[in-house]
């Protein structure tokens, strides 16, 4: 402790880029220092790859002539579970700020809320993207290997698209969850809304291919995982629909963080 700093005049505000990188580093330290966060990130990979491989392994004995069988989609079956881990990761990262005044501490270190929100969202999104890339490629390679003769190569139609697309899909779902959590300020509320939505709605809606169901964030985004998507949307437009959902949630969350008292 030196007395000299005590009388120093505060400098002109640091430039936004420098504050952003510092804030992003802080967010990274926050993730790294929580076992549960690191755990959910790992779970993204483990669930996506593991369950995908399991489905492919079991499917191997089945008939080749199965109607509607999509070898590509089969290896991404685990993504249904991986996305829950990704959402849980995003939700806990944001909801921990809304406990016991944690946000106040964060905002006394990063008072510009735009910088804070952008850094947090970017770090969560970036980490999910990285985990998603690992999960996507590993799920594809493991799954197709297990499918044996029916298996696809990376050079086959839609294979690379699905590998990258699955990572982007996970990222968008995580961002969707980030925005909702910032808006509702409660992890429990978001998880109890999103998880049933993701697990139940597909079964209820089932194969009702047409109509509004196509535009649900998960249904639209998962088209990128199919070799021959049977939908009114294409694989990339499907992902774009998910991106719109994510963007809407992120913007809504931003408005809430900016306007509300901490």
């Amino acid at each position, binding site marked *: *402790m*030196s*007395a000299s*700093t*005590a*009388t*120093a*005049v*505060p*400098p*002109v*505000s*640091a430039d936004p880029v*420098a*504050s952003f990188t*510092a*804030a992003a*580093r*802080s967010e*990274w*330290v*926050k993730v790294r*220092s*929580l*076992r*549960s966060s690191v755990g959910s990130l790992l779970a993204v990979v483990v669930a996506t790859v593991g369950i995908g491989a399991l489905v492919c392994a079991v499917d191997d004995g089945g008939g080749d002539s199965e109607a509607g069988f999509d070898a590509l989609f089969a290896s991404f079956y685990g993504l249904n579970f991986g996305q829950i881990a990704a959402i849980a990761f995003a939700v806990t990262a944001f909801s*921990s700020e809304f*406990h*016991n*005044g*944690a946000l*106040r*501490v*964060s*905002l*006394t*270190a*990063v*008072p*510009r809320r735009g910088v804070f929100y952008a850094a947090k969202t970017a770090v969560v999104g970036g980490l999910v993207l990285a985990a998603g890339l690992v999960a996507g490629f590993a799920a594809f390679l493991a799954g197709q290997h297990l499918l044996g003769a029916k298996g696809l190569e990376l050079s086959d139609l839609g294979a690379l698209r699905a590998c990258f697309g699955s990572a982007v899909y996970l990222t968008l779902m995580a961002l969707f969850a980030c925005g909702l959590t910032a808006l509702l300020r409660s992890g429990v509320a978001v998880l109890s809304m999103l998880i049933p939505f993701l697990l139940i709605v597909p079964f209820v809606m089932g194969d009702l291919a047409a109509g509004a169901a196509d535009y649900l964030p998960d249904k639209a985004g998962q088209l990128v995982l199919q070799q021959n998507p049977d939908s009114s949307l294409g694989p990339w437009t499907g992902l774009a629909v998910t991106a719109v959902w994510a963007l809407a949630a992120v913007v809504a969350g931003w408005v809430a963080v900016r306007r509300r*008292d*901490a």
Partner: protein
Amino acid sequence: MTCIEANGLTKEYGAVRAVDRVTFSVEPGRVTGFLGPNGAGKSTAMCLVLGLSRPTAGTATVGGRPFAGLGQPLRHVGALLDAQAAHGSRTARDHLLTLAAANRIPAARAGEALEETGLAGVARRRVRTFSLGMRQRLGIAAALLGDPGVLMLDEPSNGLDPEGIIWIRELLRRLAAEGRTVLVSSHLMSETASYADHLLVLGKGRLLADSPMRAFIDAHVQPRVRLRSTEPERLRSVLLRAGYEPELGEDGRMTVPGARAARLGPLAAEENLPVLELANDEATLEEAYLALTADETQFAAAPSVLAQEV
């Protein structure tokens, strides 16, 4: 100068004015006690200064600029608002590292701050396992992290053991002696009296007093002298002649309102009165505070006194 300034600061929650046109300036080099009952608006005022809540009206600055405009704010302002704010699953050290990273403060400072607050031994323990006193110390460590010129601590002695209370008192005095601006809120009078040089008193959102502590006490409590003599009756008549109004007690004791020992001693000596005891009865901050709030309640209740004969 790194002072905290509030100008007409007002915060309304619906119809309630939590902070009502508050104007003050907290100067460096002394400990300013921010006093008031729970719900008086102390924490809200601190949140307004830190840009955590948006004022309904008025402005607040730290070192002449709004808090949100500070680059690397932890290097200028250290704040403790809520000891529970640290994430329970994080270690004490990691909690500080998240803050250090945000303001490019070297990681070594985390260790120093923990050392300074007596938490070095539990640096790698999860905050969940901490007692309230330890969390309070961690909150103070976070405030000291950036070696800031301004400190704002909301009820820092909450949950501290007697040893901790002595520690915080000495810490606050030292920080002020180093030329820092120190604002400490409390609802505990004797606590505040033990470290504050200056007082801001808040009641129902309004600033009731802004004065040096000594002057505050003197302004609100009449000084008294306690004395005891072998000839209380004679002493009494001497005092009455001198214009005092002594109150006689048992065993030759008496108290003399509005007097100072330095005046009464010579007076008794002139009359050859044997004095066994003579002392100024020092008024406490508590008495002064209660006197002030009594005036305030009276004032506030006056217009509707007929309406609510209780």
